[in-house]
């Protein structure tokens, strides 16, 4: 290995750690968005008793769900929460396990990149045409779609960083760090 490898190790560890910290914060933001939406729905239910309504709670909850889902993906990834069937994996030695982790994470990163790539035209079209939702609210669609798309882009970015970190750590034989970036977490 070259002399700058320890520096590289350090940088990679820093990158993984920062990703983790940012996603921890993002998760709380997403959670608060859920809580606010629940409150909004509740207020609407109470208003309905008095024959009034904000209107459009369904539409807004849908947007929130899309946004929360896409932004939560990266958080679940750093928590190793995406379900994997590790029946074969646990039978292998550490090297085989690390290779399977690489395969899994690289496939995930590639898929996330592809979804973000194919998702862009959806947002771009809404911006270009100034599309609005076919509802009384007439929400300009680019707003929820921008939040949704950037979540997928962030997921793709996070996954790519982790995939690179995993490959680097595996090739350097840093088993513990590799497991932390791309192993199988305990479910729930």
């Amino acid at each position, binding site marked *: 290995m070259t002399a700058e490898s320890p520096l590289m190790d350090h940088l990679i560890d820093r990158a993984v750690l920062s990703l983790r910290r940012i996603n921890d914060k993002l998760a709380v933001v997403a959670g608060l968005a859920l809580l606010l939406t629940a409150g909004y729905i509740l207020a609407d239910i109470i208003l309905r008793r008095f024959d009034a309504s904000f209107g459009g709670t369904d539409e807004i909850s849908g947007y929130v769900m899309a946004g929360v889902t896409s932004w*939560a993906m990266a958080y679940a990834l750093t928590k190793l929460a995406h379900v994997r069937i590790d029946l074969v994996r646990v039978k292998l030695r550490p090297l085989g396990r690390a290779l399977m982790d690489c395969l899994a994470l690289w496939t995930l990163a590639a898929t996330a990149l*592809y979804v973000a790539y194919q998702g862009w035209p959806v947002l771009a079209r809404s911006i270009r045409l100034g599309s609005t939702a076919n509802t009384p609210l007439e929400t300009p669609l680019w707003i929820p779609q921008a939040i949704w798309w950037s979540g997928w882009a962030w997921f793709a970015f996070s996954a790519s960083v982790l995939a690179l970190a995993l490959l680097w750590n595996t090739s350097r034989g840093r088993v513990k760090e590799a497991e932390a970036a791309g192993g199988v977490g305990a*479910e*729930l």
Partner: protein
Amino acid sequence: MIVYIALGLLGLLAASIPVGIVLFVLAFGIDAFFSPFPLMRGLGQVVWSSSNSATLIAIPFFVLLGEILVRSGVAERTYTALDRWVSWLPGGLIHANIGTATLFSATSGSSVATAATVATVAMPQAEALNYNPRLFSGAIAAGGTLGIMIPPSINLIVYGFLTESSIPQLFLAGLLPGLLLALMFMAITAILCIIKPSLGGPSRSSSWGERFAGLSDLLPILFLFGAIVGSIYTGWATPTEAAAIGVAIALLIAAVNKGLSVRMLVDSLRGAVRITAMIMLVVIGAYVLNFALSSAGLGRALQDLMANLGLTPLMTLFVIILMYIILGFFIETLSLMVATIPIIVPIVVGLGYDKIWFGILMIILVEMALITPPVGLNLFVVQGARRSGSFTDVMIGAIPYALVMLLMVGLLILFPQIALFLPSGL
């Protein structure tokens, strides 16, 4: 195409690629090999419309509700109160395990969370009172599975979303079979403990005064359940609105129990967001696969396959059930459901069976998957809460309950009304 899907699914899953991603990859494969026109240009739109859903937001709400309750100390109180009501039965505290699991199922939509909660509360008691660890822990693992059957159930929301069936109807359909299963679990416990008294611990009786005093600890959770199911049944609220009401009541219960703090709230929010992402990656993947399969003409392929096999509807149903039992040894609940729904449900509906009824049948089968080794999440969870003893104990202890579930499958086939009676009034 069906062979490609089946082999690809098993192969990629065995390669330990995340389940949701496997479903995406299979959809890409169908686009490349089986579709006469490119499908994946529509991928962005499909992903957007599958997650832009006011129905699905009920999932994070129900998860959040469960997280709040679990962290607020309600479980301990429920357990103590139920102990007073049911521990006179042969089998003693084991009935309290099942009862607490049933009540928690009725508020949290997840089986693993239910098992984990009950296990942490109950396990210290088993050691103190000298229960047979096998049956005791098996009952917790099995009782926990009810979480996905008794409404609200996250798995039923996902089933309803993917098969375009009514979620209120599914919720009502799950109610009777869920309660019946709980009663059957208690019956088998009592029978086993009468045959072999050493299995259970001391039966304890409490005075009626103690029982009614404990009732005040059961009321909040019964009220929460009543508010959720009642508001859906009367048509007063959609499942999503009922879930939002549930979150508010759970916060209230936590506040009354003095279990509410910023730390606890942040933990609950993070937990809910993590589990939501975990569920949604699989659901979006299934939605994309669904889209690819139907665009590439799965319907025709399935009709051809069924015509070639020449089985009667009942025989086909048995083959499907057998497949779920076998797959259930290795794959867990939601993954198992979501990965098979795009192919199995069209077959079953094509045979003339009811979609709602089959949803409930499928839930029992994936409940079994939770307690059948080598991969049974609830078994792991319960073992994790024990301080000593081998995993085999939990495994053996769960066997009687797995057999009861099989019996329930038979009952549902013979008497579909068990599931369909309540929703028919909706």
